[in-house]
């Protein structure tokens, strides 16, 4: 996560600035966000969902100082800036060119103005303004250059696409400066590039021939976390583009970037996970595009990510770590998709480390309340692990994880569905497995799911019942005793379910019921006669 401007000197520990930043964030939650802000722990708002479905979820990052940095050395409060008029912008630019006042202050003023959309739009429409700004951006006066870079960054963050596109002439310079050594400046250039890249096809069409991949390849060797995080951000934005599977991912896979990504995704976790988070998402975008996962597999991605999850699980039990879900989520997705790789293209990925199973359950327990979306992601991986690996199916039972799994049957629809699928995976392995499931009270849970109205959930429950009944006759009797027949009958008119309901009834339940009755008659006869 981009911090405020990082210090390479001794940390000042100015808490007021950190607090100001947190207050600003809390405020943002309450005000301008609407439905997205209202549901922090749960689902995002309707607008965001719609945007994602239309592939228009444009995420941009903004690095912004909390206080005005001037020569006084005072950590001030954020100065409320007003938008500038066109005339004011013009005057500022003229003054900067002539140097009538301290250039840095003038540019600061401009930068504050550029926080406003109308001002951004006015600026880019002024003839020659971009040219002047780029000239300042390439200046040898370091502080002027930095301030100009901040102006450019504000523009890159604009919600108006035409503003971001106006920054196109700056990209060759942004790329040139990536090989520089100033941490702060490089970081700024990276986030600016990332914002531009996510916004516009035109920008990406230019960035690739301008050599962004080689530039990132040399930049990724930087030891500075701030730079690496920014780099991860740029890369993640590029990899998310519509044309990424055909135009961008092949180039990335051809370079040494994947090896670096694998190194960085598990590095420096105690110091701060920002870097790892970015590269984890990068890997997810590559893997889920299914371009050449065989290559990543040959580079050891599976073991790297498994070990990473194990380490994250151990961090959970030690201390609460904010934002862990942001790292865990993409890693889970990578592993799940890698496990599901087409066997004709790559030899089947096998994972057999039981500790991974424990890690998954620990994550689910930890995140069930705060971030339920992660539970379904964990279950997806659990499904892919248990589908044809009996070792995991056995471990769920012998490690006594079944009660936890059954608890998930009362959660969201997707979670319930996946949990049922995992149970089916387990039951399918054989009678010994069914026996354990039955012993550990799977039937009562199934009866609850049968009471639900969702046809897919009920259907999966029926599949599980079938597997149990097929391999374990005593399950049939128990089911009957627990009023199972009635539970089934409520679905007998549902076209999606009726065939299976009938099959279960006719094949198992009715005969069993009949024999129970005849047993009862027989016992009664014995009693009465004696």
């Amino acid at each position: 996560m981009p911090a405020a401007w990082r210090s390479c000197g001794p940390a000042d520990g100015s808490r007021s600035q950190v607090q100001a930043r947190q207050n600003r964030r809390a405020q943002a939650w309450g005000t301008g966000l609407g439905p997205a802000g209202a549901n922090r722990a749960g689902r995002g708002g309707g607008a965001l969902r719609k945007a994602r479905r239309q592939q228009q979820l444009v995420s941009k990052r903004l690095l912004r100082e909390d206080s005005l940095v001037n020569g006084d050395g005072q950590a001030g409060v954020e100065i409320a800036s007003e938008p500038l008029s066109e005339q004011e912008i013009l005057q500022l630019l003229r003054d900067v060119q002539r140097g009538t006042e301290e250039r840095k202050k003038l540019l600061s003023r401009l930068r504050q103005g550029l926080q406003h959309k109308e001002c951004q739009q006015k600026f880019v429409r002024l003839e020659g303004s971009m040219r002047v700004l780029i000239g300042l951006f390439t200046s040898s006066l370091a502080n002027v250059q930095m301030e100009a870079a901040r102006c450019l960054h504000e523009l890159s963050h604009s919600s108006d696409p035409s503003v971001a596109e106006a920054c196109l002439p700056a990209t060759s310079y942004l790329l040139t400066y990536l090989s520089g050594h100033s941490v702060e400046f490089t970081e700024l250039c990276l986030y600016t590039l990332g914002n531009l890249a996510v916004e516009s096809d035109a920008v990406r069409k230019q960035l690739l021939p301008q050599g962004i991949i080689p530039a990132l390849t040399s930049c990724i060797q930087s030891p500075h976390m701030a730079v690496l995080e920014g780099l991860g951000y740029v890369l993640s934005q590029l990899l998310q583009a519509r044309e990424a599977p055909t135009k961008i991912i092949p180039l990335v896979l051809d370079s040494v970037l994947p090896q670096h990504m694998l190194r960085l995704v598990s590095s420096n976790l105690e110091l701060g996970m920002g870097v790892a988070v970015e590269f984890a998402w990068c890997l997810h975008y590559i893997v889920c595009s299914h371009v050449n996962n065989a290559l990543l597999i040959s580079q050891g991605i599976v073991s790297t990510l498994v070990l990473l999850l194990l380490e994250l699980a151990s961090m959970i039990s030690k201390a609460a770590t904010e934002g862990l879900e942001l790292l865990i989520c993409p890693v889970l997705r990578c592993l799940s998709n890698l496990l599901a790789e087409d066997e004709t293209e790559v030899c089947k990925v096998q994972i057999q480390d039981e500790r991974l199973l424990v890690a998954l359950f620990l994550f689910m327990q930890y995140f069930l309340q705060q971030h339920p979306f992660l539970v379904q992601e964990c279950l997806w991986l659990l499904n892919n692990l248990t589908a044809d690996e009996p070792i995991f199916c056995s471990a769920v039972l012998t490690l006594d994880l079944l009660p936890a799994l059954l608890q998930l049957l009362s959660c969201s629809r997707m979670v319930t569905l996946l949990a049922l699928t995992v149970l089916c995976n387990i039951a399918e392995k054989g009678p010994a497995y069914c026996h354990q499931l039955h012993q550990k009270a799977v039937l009562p849970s199934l009866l609850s799911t049968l009471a639900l109205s969702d046809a897919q959930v009920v259907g999966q429950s029926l599949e599980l019942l079938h597997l149990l009944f097929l391999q374990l006759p005593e399950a049939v009797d128990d089911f009957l005793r627990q009023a199972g027949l009635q539970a089934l009958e409520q679905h007998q008119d549902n076209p999606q379910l009726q065939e299976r309901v009938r099959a279960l009834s006719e094949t198992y339940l009715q005969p069993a019921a009949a024999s129970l009755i005849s047993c009862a008659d027989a016992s009664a006869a014995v009693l009465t006669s004696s």
Partner: protein
Amino acid sequence: MLLPPELSVSLRVERPMLPVQPCTPPRAPFCFSPSRLRFHRQHEFFEDGDIHRHLYLQDILTNVTEVTERSKVSEFCCHIVGCCQVFDTLEGYEHHYNTLHRNMCSFCKRSFPSVHLLDTHILEWHDSLFQIMAEKQKMYQCLVEGCAEKFKSSKDRKDHLVKVHLYPSDFRFDKPKKAKSSTKHSKPPSKLDMSMPMDVNVETYEQSQVDSMEICPSESMENPTQPVSGPISSLQEKKLYKSRIPSTICFGQGASRGFKSMKKKV
């Protein structure tokens, strides 16, 4: 969630795997068969997680890394001989150093944004062998890292940069070595003075030559004999130097010298 206690301990206990019975294919109307699920990038399954990621990037969620703040230190001077810039933050100094001193050509004192550009400059400007070889073979290397193309001349290289790499034709770090005889006053009048030097620099100099791949000198002038002294000398930052170093002498940064530069405009 009801997780059993001491899971890590249980892991280490030997637990034989339950025996597997070979599975038979499902019998109709039942259709379940275990399978590994695969989701493509736009799948609905990813919706919640993607939104969470989006909100994180929009800076709504709590930071995962520490926020360290800038610290101010007492004023200090750049230690490079002849450079008298003063700083009160370490970042400011770091950036200044990297911009002006780090990739500096020891022959002509020009500064470059990267080692790569510096190396190319030294090769093309200060290596006499280069000039000899350039007559016979393609020696001018493309400036874009990762591109291995070479060219017979600087101009050919520029054409390549513009056409293939979509670089701007006035890319600051690829100006031709020869003198420019014309200037840019063909532009229609605009609100901003376009003939003013685009670049903002520290020192005054009379030389108006623009050299390739470097950061400092001003753009070409309208009138070759008119010095650039006017606006720049009024810079407040300059006051520090003006009192200490005569404007005719320049150390460690600019291309001009107190004595006229050898690369005169023709």
